[in-house]
C-alpha cells in the first residue's frame, strides 16, 4: 500500500496518513481505553467476583450477585431488588412522559416569541439544564417546607401529618425528577418545533377540525426526531439518577442509583454493586436499541 493519494489537497501515501492519524488518535483513545473501556470490562469481571468478609474482593467467580439481584437470597425469593429496578424504570418513564407533556407547550411558546426574546427564553431553559443537580434538588426543600401552602394544603387533606414537610416521598421524587430532566426534552424538541412546516399544520386544520388529529397527524410526525432525542436523553439518565431519590425520596423510595451507591458506600459490596450496574447497563442498551430502531424508521418516513 505505497501508492499515492490526495487527501484534503495533500499529496501523501495511505501509510503515512494512517501513521499520522494514529498519532492524533493515540493520546485521547489511550485515555478512553484505560479509564473508560478497561474499567468497564473490570466492572463486568468484578460483578462475577465475591465479597470477602471485610468487604474486600475475592476472586472466586460466581453468578451469585446476579441471582441476588433477581431476588434469590439465602432465605428464599424476595422481590426487594426487582421492585427497586422496576420502580426505577417506572419513575424514568413517568418523568419522561410528564417532561414531554410539559415540553410541547413550552417549545411552541418559545417558538412564537419574537426573534430577540426567543434567545432569552431559550437561555432561561438552558440555565437549569447546566445548574448543579444537588442545588436544584435541595431547592425543593424550600418549596415543600411545612410553612408553605403546598405542605399546608397536603396536611389539610390529611395526606401528611401537620407541620411536616412535603418530603421525603414519591411525590417529591417526581417533582425533583421532572424539574431535573424537563430541559433535556424541551431543548431538542424546540429544535424540531422551530423547523416545523406550518403549511402542513394549516392544511390539517383545514381538512379536519379536531385539535387532537391536527396534533397526531401534522405536528407529532414532524417533531418526532427532536422528541425521540429528548426521550432518550431523559429516560436513560433518569433510570440511574440517585441524587433526587436520595434527597427527596428517602429510604422508602429507593431507586437503582441509590442501590448502587449503597453497595459502593456503606455496604462495601463491590461485586453486588457491579452486578447492579450491569443490570442498569443492560436496561440502557435496551432503551438505546429501541431508540435506534425507531430513529431508523423515522429516517425512512
Amino acid at each position, binding site marked *: 500500500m505505497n501508492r499515492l493519494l490526495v*487527501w*484534503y489537497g*495533500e499529496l501523501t501515501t*495511505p501509510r503515512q496518513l*494512517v501513521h499520522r*492519524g494514529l498519532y*492524533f*488518535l493515540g*493520546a*485521547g*483513545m489511550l*485515555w*478512553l*481505553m484505560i*479509564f*473508560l*473501556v*478497561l*474499567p468497564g470490562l*473490570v*466492572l463486568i469481571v468484578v460483578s462475577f467476583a465475591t465479597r470477602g468478609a471485610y468487604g474486600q474482593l475475592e476472586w472466586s467467580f460466581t453468578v451469585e450477585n446476579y441471582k441476588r439481584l433477581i431476588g434469590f437470597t439465602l432465605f428464599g425469593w424476595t422481590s426487594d431488588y426487582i421492585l427497586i429496578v422496576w420502580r426505577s424504570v417506572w419513575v424514568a418513564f413517568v418523568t419522561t412522559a410528564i417532561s414531554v407533556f*410539559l*415540553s410541547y*407547550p*413550552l417549545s*411552541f*411558546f418559545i*417558538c*412564537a416569541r419574537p426573534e430577540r426574546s426567543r434567545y432569552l427564553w431559550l*437561555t*432561561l*431553559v*438552558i*440555565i437549569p439544564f447546566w*445548574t*448543579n443537580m*444537588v442545588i*436544584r434538588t*435541595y*431547592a425543593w426543600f*424550600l*418549596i415543600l*417546607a411545612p*410553612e408553605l401552602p403546598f405542605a399546608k394544603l397536603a396536611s389539610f387533606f390529611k395526606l401528611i401529618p401537620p407541620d411536616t414537610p412535603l418530603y421525603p416521598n414519591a411525590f417529591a421524587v417526581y417533582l425533583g425528577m421532572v*424539574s431535573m430532566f424537563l430541559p433535556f426534552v424541551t431543548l431538542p424538541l424546540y429544535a424540531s418545533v422551530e423547523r416545523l412546516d406550518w403549511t402542513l399544520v394549516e392544511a390539517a386544520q383545514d381538512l379536519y377540525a379536531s385539535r387532537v388529529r391536527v396534533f397526531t397527524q401534522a405536528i407529532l410526525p414532524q417533531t418526532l426526531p427532536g422528541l425521540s432525542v429528548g426521550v*432518550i436523553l431523559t429516560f*436513560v439518565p433518569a*433510570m*440511574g439518577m*440517585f*441524587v433526587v431519590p436520595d*434527597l427527596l425520596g428517602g429510604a422508602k423510595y429507593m431507586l437503582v442509583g441509590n442501590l*448502587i*451507591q449503597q453497595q*459502593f458506600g456503606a455496604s462495601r459490596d*463491590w461485586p453486588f454493586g*457491579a452486578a447492579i*450496574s450491569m443490570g*442498569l447497563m443492560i436496561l*440502557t442498551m435496551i432503551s438505546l436499541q429501541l431508540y435506534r430502531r425507531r430513529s431508523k424508521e423515522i429516517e425512512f418516513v
Partner: protein
Amino acid sequence: MRRTHPLISAAALLTMGFLYLPLLSVAVFSVNATRYGLVWRGFTLDWYIQLVHNEFILEAAWNTLVLAVASTLVATVFGTVLAIGLDRFPWSKRTNTFLDIVLHVPVVIPDIILAAALVVAFGLLRALSSVFEPGLFNMIIGHITFQIAFVALVVRSRLVSIGREIEEAARDLFASTPYILRRITLPLLLPGIVAGAMLAFTLSLDDFVISFFTAGPESVTLPLFIFAAVRRGVTPQIHALSTLVVLITVILIIGMERFTRK
C-alpha cells in the same frame, strides 16, 4: 409571527415557573435575615459574608476550581487532537463505528455506571500506586474521561462544518501542511475548541456523581459540600453558596452562547 393559544402560553409560563421557583426561593432565602424558618425578616448579606470566613467552603471552592481547570485543560487538548484524528483521516467504516461508539459511551450511559467502573478500577490500581487513593487526582481523571468525549464531539462537528474545500483552497494556494494548520485549520477551529472547553468546564462544575464516588476526605468540592450540608439540614449559608454557584453557571452559559453564536 405566529400567535399561541392563551392556554399554551399559560402552560408554558407555569412550566417556566416550575423550573425557576425552587432556584429563586434559594436566592431569596440567601438574603433573608433569619437563620431558622421561612419567614421574611429583612434583607441581609450576612450569609454571603460568612461564606468568605468559612474555611471549609473556601477549601471546597478551591478544590472545585482546581478540579475544573485541570480537567478542562487536559480534556481540551486531548479532545481536540482526538477530534482531528477522527475527522481528518480516512479510517475504514468499521474503525469509525468503533471509535464513534467509544466516544458516545460517556455521553449516553448513566453517569453512575462510569462512577462505579472508576471506583472499581481505582480500587485495583491502588495496589500498584498510592496516587490512586480516593482524592482530587482520581476526580480529575474521572472528569477528564467524560469531558474528552464531549470536547471531541463539539470540535469534530466544527471540523465537519469547516469542510474539505477550505483546506484544499489553501493547498491550491501553495500552503504547506504546517502553514495550513497554523493559518487556516486552528484559527477556524478555535471557536469550536473554546466552546468545547467551556462545555467541559461547565460539566465539571455540574458533576456530582463522579466526584461523589471518587472523592476522598481531603478533596471536598462545592457540590459535595452542599450535598453533605443539606443532609445535615439546610442553612442560609448553603443558600448563599448555592446562589453563587448558580450565578457562576449563568455567567458561563452566557459566555458560551456569546462565543458560539458569533
